[in-house]
């Protein structure tokens, strides 16, 4: 089971680290192979996969997100920026 972390405990850096690890485990690459400004489709994170990962992010951060979040924010820089915007201070 995924450990729940409340959204506002994250900084941009910690969020990116978590996302990189998560993406790496999906596409079977080492985290240092994932560049945050490269579209995740280039690493083999296909459309359906991106929907699944968005679901994981929802559960992990306890947020309600658009299922197409990663389609519209296709790299980690854009994604973490969008997620930080979605955080509501507790």
């Amino acid at each position: 089971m995924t450990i729940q972390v409340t959204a506002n405990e994250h900084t941009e850096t910690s969020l990116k680290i978590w996302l990189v690890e998560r993406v790496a485990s999906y596409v079977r690459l080492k985290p240092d192979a994932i560049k945050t400004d490269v579209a995740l489709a280039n690493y083999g994170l296909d459309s359906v996969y991106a929907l699944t990962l968005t679901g994981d992010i929802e559960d992990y951060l306890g947020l309600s997100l658009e299922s197409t979040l990663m389609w519209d924010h296709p790299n980690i820089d854009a994604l973490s920026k969008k997620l930080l915007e979605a955080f509501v201070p507790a």
Partner: protein
Amino acid sequence: MMAQQMPTQRQDLPLHEIEKLLGDPWDRANPCSFHAILEADERNEMAAAGEEMLDRFGLGAEFVPVTLGGRLHSLTDLIEVGRAIFRRDPCLGLGYGASSLIAAVNVWSAGTPAQQQKAAALLLRNRKLACAYHELEHGNDLTRAAFEAAPQGEHWRLSGSKQVIANIERADALILYARTDPNAGSRSHSQLLVEKAAIPPECVSYPARFASVGMRGVQLGGIELRDCPAPADSVLGVPGRGLETALKAFQVTRVALPGMFMGILDTGLRSTLRYTSQRMLYGRSVLDFPQTQAVLVNAFADLLLCDCFVTVVARSMHLTPAVGSVYSAAVKYLVPKLLIDAMTALSAILGAQFYLRTGEHALFQKLLRDLKPAGFGHAARVTCQMTILPQLPRLARRAWLQPDATPVPAALFDLNDELPPFSFQSLALGAGGQDPLATALVVTKAALHAQAASPELGPLVQVFVDELEQLQQRCVALPPAELSVMASARSHAQSERYVTVLAASACLNLWWHEQAKPTAQGDAFLRDPQWIEVVLQRLQFRLTHVTHPLPKRHGAHLLAELLDRHQQAHSFDLTRRTLCGWDAPSSSSC
């Protein structure tokens, strides 16, 4: 045997009209007979008289929402109308009907009001739409479709080719799935609604028809467009949203088409029964052999099973549309497989006759060939698994075995309940960890236990609840890397087992709601537990590969019902419709 119509039968459903127009299929003098349909198939042509009758009926209006002037208001009714055509001739079903529907759902999902009116007007005038998605090179991988629409000034410029598209040449308008952004990703494609009249002749060519094993009458062609201009307002909705539109809109057709293709098994069963009633072997009627009876009963049970699953999922598209991604893929995965297996089993009864393209029983080989595309066409089975598998861990965490996690509308399983209007805009890409069917299985299992209704049913239902518990343990632990196209066969097996559990829940709960009705309202056959026990036994075998023993009376009960329906020319599905005008050994009037 009770043979009354179900009280749920909608009086305004136009099935009688369709049957009246098409006439008795067994009468060789009828232009829409099976004989004429086979002759057309041998010529690789659509049955001309059939098309004329469907024009007269105005089948296109069945695909147009009521709000746009058509008759489409419920998916269950849509499926029944389509099934009636498939019972007659799968080529008419696909080549006249379903292929326009597949195109139209894109427009109803994402089109502007003007685009919707344009498509509706064509269908209401019996014109055809072609759905040009498929590129042989990319199969079901929509994100790699190469056909290109590039912005050029005020217009789009179309270049590329599409293959194996029904009616591509004779359709009045096309839905073209095109790359509108060169970048990889999920926002790079769009659908364009393009009218043939607007295509300059020098920009288009149509390669020769693709020769196919079945559906020989259907005009399966290709198209090649070269620097073809298309107006700026051709794109359905917002450019770049094509994948999202496809994944939502095709949830409807992934349920509807298998539900329509079920008509093939209905006619396959009827053809086999006609054969068995005439054929003598070893001094006996073929129908006297226990093996023949077992095959017939199993095929009938599988038809009922398919209809339970299709009907409940079609109802769920109205009632719980947000979970449609998983359930529609589950139907598209399971139902075609069951239909093909049942027809293959029936072919053994016909022996050499099923292999012959001439003679009295030649219809069967055509049905068998025409059924095959149900398995791979419009989303291959593996594509459906790939829709389901990635959602399993979340369903396992959030929904399974948690009776309060997902609300279950009782109307999902009540055939008498009017459905709320269907909304294409309520469909979602993922189920979000909601699973009303899995919840309903556990809830009904508990109620059944409390009531101790049938000694056979309890242990059978327990098999599926146990399976759900094991699935939960296995799926919660699935690592992300096992959720992609690179998933192992073992992980793929989880989605197959899950689909079986969903189907069991649909069947069980449909029966559960039928048996609870006052005697005057329900259907006597559906109320009795014997059919559901056979159906669950069929599904249980898929999980355990060991047949749960049932008393012999079950088989005899289903066989008697099957023969009775054949005698009276009633459909073999849940609705038990009277097939008006069909030759019935003991005739009934409509």
